[in-house]
């Protein structure tokens, strides 16, 4: 399953299904050099040379541009009219440069192209120019030299294989800032867990207790809590987080607001409490639904008919029978905790994994997003298997063979 997820992500992120992956990684305003570097970073080209050719246009003031179209290098003028089309397949860079020079000398008025490159570079196949350039447009203007990169194109199946092998070695490469992605995820994931895990456990315990109480008593408090949960859940967390932040810091003065530095406990307690105040309500609704369903079971009605006191019905019978689904839910949710909260970490300036992901999104860092997604998927699969085993251990009905259960 994980290998399938890795292949799917690869195909989505790097095969070009959703447009040029280098363009997605480098951003819409990337220069040709940045685009070429992104193609090398994504493994689309190998033996990458960032400064293979340096071109300078001489002659009358004008602007020409070069771009790769259908595997050919096309020279266009300022009006976007095609001036020359140079085939890149099966030719050397030397040949492409000579044809480019001839095309520029043949313009009216004629111009000149000054080329700087090592002789060894000129012997390279011109197809590498197309592979490194992708859909980038290189502008040539007198007085503004342009640099072209070169790289040997890597076929898609080979890239998929190389990527899968790297993922199997847990080698996610470097992020846009040049840091090892795995190390960064581990370091920041630990910070996210430091507040998310206690917050999640406290939320679960409180929601479970309240849900049992609501299911047992119903009445006005149940209705009030359910109405409150519906209202809070309908408001976007983006609006709730700044409200809670202001209330807990500026208005009540319970927590400090300062940059990430020791002591860390107060800095972690603030997002943890915010988490609890926001996440309590959906958990409460879920556990209440489970509790109400369970309270309708015949064995519980029989226990009630026998005259057991409500407290014993609640904690001695209902709560243990809810343990399996609740713990299964907890086990399945746990792996998501390391992702922290994208919003909380942004609101409280906490350098956790959530902040790393938002930075990766802003920086169009496909590799970091891919790594976080795969690690989350792996954690989910492990947790799912654990949840199944846990539920079966707690609930004998889930262990019974299908024929017996029927």
């Amino acid at each position: 399953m994980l290998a399938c997820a890795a292949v799917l992500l690869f195909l989505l992120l790097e095969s070009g299904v959703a447009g040029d992956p280098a363009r997605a990684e480098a951003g819409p305003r990337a220069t040709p050099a940045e685009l070429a570097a992104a193609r090398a970073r994504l493994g689309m080209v190998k033996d990458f040379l960032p400064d293979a050719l340096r071109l300078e246009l001489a002659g009358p003031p004008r602007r020409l541009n070069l771009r790769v179209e259908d595997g050919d290098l096309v020279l266009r003028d300022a009006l976007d009219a095609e001036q020359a089309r140079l085939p890149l397949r099966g030719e050397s860079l030397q040949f492409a440069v000579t044809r480019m020079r001839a095309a520029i000398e043949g313009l009216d008025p004629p111009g000149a192209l000054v080329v700087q490159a090592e002789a060894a570079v000129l012997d390279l196949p011109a197809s590498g120019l197309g592979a490194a350039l992708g859909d980038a447009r290189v502008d040539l203007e007198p007085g503004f030299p342009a640099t072209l990169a070169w790289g040997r194109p890597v076929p898609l199946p080979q890239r998929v294989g190389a990527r899968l092998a790297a993922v199997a070695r847990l080698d996610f490469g470097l992020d846009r800032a040049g840091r090892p992605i795995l190390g960064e995820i581990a370091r920041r994931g630990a910070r996210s867990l430091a507040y998310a895990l206690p917050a999640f456990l406290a939320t679960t315990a409180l929601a479970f207790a309240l849900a049992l109480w609501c299911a047992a008593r119903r009445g006005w408090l149940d209705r009030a809590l359910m109405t409150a949960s519906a209202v809070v859940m309908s408001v976007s967390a983006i609006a709730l987080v700044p409200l809670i932040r202001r209330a807990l810091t500026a208005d009540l003065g319970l927590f400090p607001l300062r940059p990430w530095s020791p002591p860390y406990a107060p800095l972690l307690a603030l997002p943890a409490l915010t988490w609890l105040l926001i996440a309590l309500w959906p958990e409460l609704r879920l556990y209440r639904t489970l509790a109400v369903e369970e309270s309708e079971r015949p064995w519980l009605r029989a226990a009630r008919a026998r005259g057991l006191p409500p407290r014993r019905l609640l904690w001695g019978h209902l709560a243990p029978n809810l343990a399996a689904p609740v713990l299964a839910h907890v086990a399945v949710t746990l792996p998501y905790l390391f992702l922290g909260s994208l919003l909380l970490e942004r609101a409280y300036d906490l350098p956790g994994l959530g902040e790393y992901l938002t930075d990766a999104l802003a920086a169009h860092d496909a590799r970091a997003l891919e790594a976080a997604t795969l690690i989350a998927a792996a954690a989910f699969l492990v947790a799912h298997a654990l949840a199944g085993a846990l539920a079966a251990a707690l609930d004998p009905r889930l262990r019974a063979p299908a024929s017996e259960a029927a």
Partner: protein
Amino acid sequence: MSRRLALAALAAYALCAVVAAAGAFVSAPDLAAAWAPPSAGNWLGTDQLGRDVLAQALAGARVALLVGLLAGGIATVLGAALGICAGWNGGLADRAIFAASALVSAVPGVLLVLVLGFLFGGGTLGVFLAVGLCSWVGTSRLVRAETLRLRGADFVVAARAGGAGGGRIALRHLLPNLAPLLGVQFALAFVFAVKAEIVLTFLGVGVVEGPSWGRMLADAWGFGDLDHGRWTRLAGVSAAAAGLVLAVQSLADRLRDRAAPGSAPLA
């Protein structure tokens, strides 16, 4: 929220969306009027560019409804089609669809929406596709289970005996029986899509053109509205979004309640 109130609220949002689509809520930036407090002319004050906050919040209904309807529609149609296909055909189709749904559900929803939004280059279309393609799994599994149950029902057996093909049975017999379930699932997908649009836009991979609630909230964060005592933008957008979500959610609850009987308190 009562059914009538929910329907009235939805009609009001739809009206706002139509009026916004006609360009009625567009106000030109006027820096001289920036950060004006609430007044008779601007009930919720103005933003950093001097635009009326209330008009922006009302105009945001257009994007919210568009995203909710289209992304919810994609999720429901895809989930229903795959669920019926898996439940009706069984065998290889069932296993393949189950594997695809397991693959999608193995990746955290928020992360998948973000990655897809990033892939599709953001924008309204990116949000539709990202949210729609991420939220079909639940619908598909429920529809599959219901199709399995309905496959052996008398009216389906009778239709088969009468020579009806799989497509005709799905369209004429299964779909009408699945309608309440699909209605609930559509409402849930709608709510998820509206919230996801706000988060995606807030994180910079959502709607870029026109006013949207996500952009307004992102601006409220970016300009520190609450820190400067300006609460109207945050409150206005939150109320607008909450109203829409509550209206749709309460209609979904009513649909669900029709199928599920009530229950008595324990003590």
